[in-house]
């Protein structure tokens, strides 16, 4: 099973940097499915799920951004109270650490999508599947 590739960028915290990222992707015709910015004072990290991560990675690199690709899980989450609890509790009980997570809701889907980076992705996939939690494939993310 090929994992979902998240694109992460190192950006200095100054005006116009995020706009430059958005423009670079827009010019290349790459669509952003989900995005989060984590900031730490003078710099930040932008994390994104793109419809075409390989192309996104390539154009950002060509434009001299510091960029990396990370394997993440996209977990379907019931859009009701307790939806997030079920997932993180399963991970926690199985001693899997969540490095970070962020969620988005799509127009088509009945449920929310939780993007999560964990320290043991294979184990996380196994224990969530055992709980009948649905994990989106690369193709599904691409097709949203």
């Amino acid at each position, binding site marked *: 099973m090929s994992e979902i590739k998240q694109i992460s960028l*190192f950006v200095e915290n100054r005006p116009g940097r995020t706009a430059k990222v958005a423009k670079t992707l827009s010019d290349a015709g790459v669509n952003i499915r989900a995005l989060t910015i984590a900031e*730490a004072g003078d710099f930040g*990290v932008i994390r994104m799920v793109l419809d075409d991560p390989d192309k996104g990675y390539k154009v950002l690199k060509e434009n001299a951004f*510091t960029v*990396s690709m*990370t394997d993440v899980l996209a977990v379907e989450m019931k859009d009701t109270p307790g939806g997030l609890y079920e997932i993180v509790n399963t991970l926690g009980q199985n001693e899997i650490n969540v*490095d970070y997570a962020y969620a988005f809701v799509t127009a088509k889907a009945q449920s929310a999508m939780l993007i999560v980076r964990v320290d043991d992705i294979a184990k996380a996939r196994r224990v969530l599947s055992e709980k009948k939690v649905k994990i989106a494939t690369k193709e599904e993310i691409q097709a949203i």
Partner: protein
Amino acid sequence: MSGYWDPHIERMPLEDLHALQEDRLKSVVRYVYDHSAFYRQRFKEAGVEPGDIRTLADVTKLPFTRKVDLRDNYPTGMFSAPKSQVVRYHVSSGTTGKPTVVGYTKGDIETWSESLARALTSVGLGRDDVVQVAYGYGLFTGGLGLHYGAERIGAAVLPIGTGNTERQIELMQDLGTTAIASTPSYFLHIMEVAEKMGISIKKDTKLKAGIFGAEPWSLETRKRIEDATGINAIDIYGTSEISGPLFTECYLKKGIHVWADMFLIEVLDPKTGEPVEDGETGELVFTTLHKYALPLIRYRIGDLTIMDSEPCECGRTHPRIMRILGRTDDMLIIRGINVFPSQVESVLMNIPEVGDHWEILVDRQGPLDNMTVRVELTQAGFSDKIGDLMKLKKKISKQLKGVLNIAAEVDLVEPGTIPRSMGKAKRVTDNRKV
């Protein structure tokens, strides 16, 4: 291995070399006394006459000269030769004050070229080499100095000067450049541009040596350059007051050979002016023994170094000075503690997550000096976990503190954001109002 340019002089037994220095010291003292009102006045004030200088040790009876003397006597008040004998001027940039003017007789240019011919030969360069001179040409001594030195050994000179970096790399390939002379910071920039062009200096060029100087650089930077490009990175030393770039390490890279028939060096305690032992750090002082337009007596250049007067394993008997720690002019005083930018560089270049370019910002917040070191994060050093980046900042800070003894703030910045230099890199911006 490499041969000698002038084996007779370069391998001269110490006893003979000292005798030669003694003769030349006596005549230069007599020469400046007879030809320069400035020196006559200085000698009088110090109560010394040419006749008092009988042995090499008597050099300590002579008064010191400093950069401020050159400035006070701007433009040519310290010259000893008449203008009719001067064939060239170089002028320092004057970034730290009024510019200084240096003049050369025909013989001075010869001596300068001869010094570099010996140096370039000692690193294995010769008539089969193509030397790309990427130092600035013009009033700065770097370009023309290396140009004359490389021509003297019969190498082909590519007098490209600074800038136009893509063309530098194209010509390096087309003409088969084997050695480049530039500031180390400019060469780092050339490396970066070559990589962007998809050219490997190691595989796609014939470059085997770099002659780097005009700014202090650390052993750690040498290692980075050598590891990335496979070239032999050689340290060159000299300043415009004593002619320009003059001396390099030999192929063994165990200190910079200072030609004793041309210059007498002393290494002194900067506070007391007393000589320090071999192996101890002190201030470098030059007396020119074979320079006539602007001879200098006990000139305090302001560079800190360590001397080794033992003959080198390469067979050369002339004294060596170890890597220049820094110029006292470049030294920052932060919260009362002396900081040399070269110390910062040596720490940073040992940290693989940090790129080749960096800068120091100093300002004052209330009564406190604040030093910020800005470094570029490398692609390999990037983790998308904020915690990892914070840990990296902390690690850099801690290592800086270990060497400098003061806390420095560390800013991680994106690659390519710190200004690249073509000549001497400007690493420090001091915004303190004094």
